[in-house]
């Protein structure tokens, strides 16, 4: 197979039509497709399923793609705020203050992160993303007073320069890991897993390995770079505690240390992370994005962000450390409603990844023609692993990356983060809260029995919480 060719990908330039799983013709609605009434599509074997079976039989390999889970999952959409009424007093929307600041890492670190908004940028690597895209994330986040996070490829000088507050990830691969970057980071995030693939390592396919990426990772150019699924020097929670101790010693106890887990056995993972000495815990639900993972992994491993949030808060409350060990939730955060609902369930902050890429210009309708040339379409593009992103975001090709304007991208990120914050404040004021952290589960009801059970809030119009007496 040629180096530039993606495993499991349809041929570049091919029609993105029904032969490719998951991509429907742009703008079409399968429920409204014109067809004779005597043609009945199988629910079990719909055209997407049929196309995937055909693709698998043709190519002999699983599909690797980017983005997050695409299936319908219980999510924050299944919750509603009650809003103030006679028993609750609202705040004036355009006058009364609703604070949004958050401090992360107050447990042990000398220098906790002080953020102006409770929305941070999740870890995305230089390698998966282009240098100007990383720069834009830093510019935008810094403008509104929040943090960005490195990724599985080390820290670049550019992202350090453009991010006022930068979280440095310690991943199993340890690509680019060095003590100087630990010390110039503002916080450290030990990554145990991510929501798109709890229990899985990573893969940066060879055609995304530029000279610079190869050098940063101490590997030859052009080969697939596997990121290990396990850390090389610790195993289990007792070791993790000692590892965190080492990181604290190396950084003289100055930096907050986060532990990030993909949502699976969240209750236990959070308790073990607390026991291991984490200052803050990042829980990434299965809707969390990825740059390159098997589709079967993305769609079938882990639990959604909604129940994971509840389980994480349960774990922290049971240990008596809720708000002392901060909780950051990620995976499918799209708007202020998602932010507000995560906070109401007990999170201290949220992180965005996929939404940030979209804000930068990913899947932009203006690029629809170019996406179609790649066998996709605007609104469907998920081939972050392929490195041919016409938006210049998920690529290492200089010509493509040069199309991306980091100043404009930074402005878009800042705009988007401001909107998320304004929306969150709007909902918080409606519930009578002078700080977004004052939102609480009692402000919520659920639209579905599933969401009521997972979030442990009553089904709307009832006082029934499934599982409660």
């Amino acid at each position, binding site marked *: *197979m040629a*180096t530039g060719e993606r*495993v499991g990908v349809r041929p570049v330039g091919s029609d993105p039509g029904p032969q490719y799983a998951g991509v429907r013709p742009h703008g079409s609605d399968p429920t409204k497709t014109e067809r004779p009434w005597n043609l009945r599509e199988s629910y079990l074997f719909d055209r997407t399923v049929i196309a995937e079976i055909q693709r698998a039989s043709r190519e*002999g*390999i699983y599909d690797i793609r980017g983005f997050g889970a695409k299936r319908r999952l219980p999510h924050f959409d299944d919750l509603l705020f009650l809003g103030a009424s006679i028993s609750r007093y609202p705040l004036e929307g355009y006058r009364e203050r609703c604070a949004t600041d958050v401090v992360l890492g107050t447990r042990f670190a000398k220098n906790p992160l002080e953020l102006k908004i409770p929305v941070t940028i999740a870890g995305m690597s230089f390698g998966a993303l282009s240098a100007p895209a990383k720069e834009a994330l830093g510019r935008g986040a810094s403008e509104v007073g929040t943090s960005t996070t490195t990724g599985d490829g080390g820290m670049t000088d550019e992202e350090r320069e453009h991010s006022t507050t930068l979280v440095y990830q310690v991943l199993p*691969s*340890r690509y680019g*890991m*060095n*003590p*100087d970057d*630990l010390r110039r980071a503002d916080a450290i995030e030990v990554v145990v897993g991510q929501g798109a693939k709890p229990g899985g390592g990573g*893969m940066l*396919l*060879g055609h995304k390995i530029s000279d610079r990426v190869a050098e940063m*990772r*101490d*590997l*030859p150019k*052009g*080969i*697939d770079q*596997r990121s*290990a699924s396990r850390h*090389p*020097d*610790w195993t289990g929670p007792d*070791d993790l505690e*000692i*590892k965190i*101790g*080492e990181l604290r*010693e*190396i*950084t*003289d*106890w100055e930096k907050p240390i986060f532990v990030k887990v993909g949502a699976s056995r969240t209750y236990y993972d959070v308790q073990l992370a607390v026991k291991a000495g984490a200052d803050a815990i990042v829980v990434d639900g299965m809707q969390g994005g990825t740059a390159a993972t098997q589709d079967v992994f993305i769609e079938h491993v882990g639990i959604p962000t909604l129940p994971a949030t509840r389980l994480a808060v349960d774990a922290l409350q049971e240990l008596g450390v809720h708000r002392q060990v901060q909780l950051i939730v990620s995976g499918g955060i799209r708007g202020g409603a998602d932010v507000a609902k995560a906070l109401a369930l007990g999170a201290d902050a949220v992180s965005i990844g996929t939404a940030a890429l979209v804000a930068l210009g990913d899947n932009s309708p203006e690029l629809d023609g170019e996406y179609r040339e790649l066998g996709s379409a605007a609104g469907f593009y998920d081939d972050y692993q392929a490195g041919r992103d016409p938006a210049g975001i998920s690529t290492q090709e200089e010509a493509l990356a040069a199309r991306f304007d980091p100043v404009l991208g930074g402005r878009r990120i800042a705009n988007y983060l401001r909107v998320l914050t304004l929306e969150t404040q709007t909902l918080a004021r409606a519930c009578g809260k002078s700080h977004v952290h004052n939102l609480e589960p009692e402000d919520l009801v659920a639209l579905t029995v599933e969401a009521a059970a997972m979030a442990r809030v009553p089904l709307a119009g009832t006082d029934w919480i499934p599982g409660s007496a």
Partner: protein
Amino acid sequence: MAVAAREQAAVELVDLEQTSLRDLNQRLHDLARAPGPSAWRIVNPSGAHALACGIDAEVEVEIDGHVGYYCAGMNKRATVRVHGNAGTGLAENMMSGLVVVDGNASQSAGATGRGGLLVVGGDAAARCGISMKGIDIVVGGSVGHMSAFMAQTGCLVVCGDAGEALGDSIYEARLYIGGSVASLGADCVEKELRDEHAAQLSALLDAAGIDADPSGFRRYGSARQLYNFRIDNAGAY
């Protein structure tokens, strides 16, 4: 300890029964920014974890006794000698300098190391040199299973035997084994040991101060068959 009096001494003596680990590591870290003693002797380590980690200075540190996890982790420029055994993650992610352990080392010695030389006089346990990224490791005795797993660059020299799955999923690291190899991991093969390799091996043994005959060693490295995913190799994973 009378620290002020000791400052004048040629060798700075620190007793970990009297001084906290935090204070010791802070003093060692301060050497990156301000001059201080160039030779240190640490006594009563009592298996402490994270001892002498994160140093960034040309300094000699001798430790009398056994150390716990992550001794000399992420070391830069310093020479750290342990007169005893070492726990998991010895000199993990070392950047440069020299770390020498007289006794044995537990799992993951030299893990992800990016430079410098790590010498283990005795045996090293499983995963020695895992994901190594440029460090050189010389082991006087034997190494456990999965050593040099996903090893990227650098050299691992083992004077004794290697356990199962040596060099599994190895990239460009070079492995020199003096004794037997229980089994090779995926994509790891024996390779010709040419003159340039013999010279490299001899230089590493000399640098490590280990008296071993280089002629009996065999070289292992990557077959480079798994560098880019091919479905035909699915059975190898």
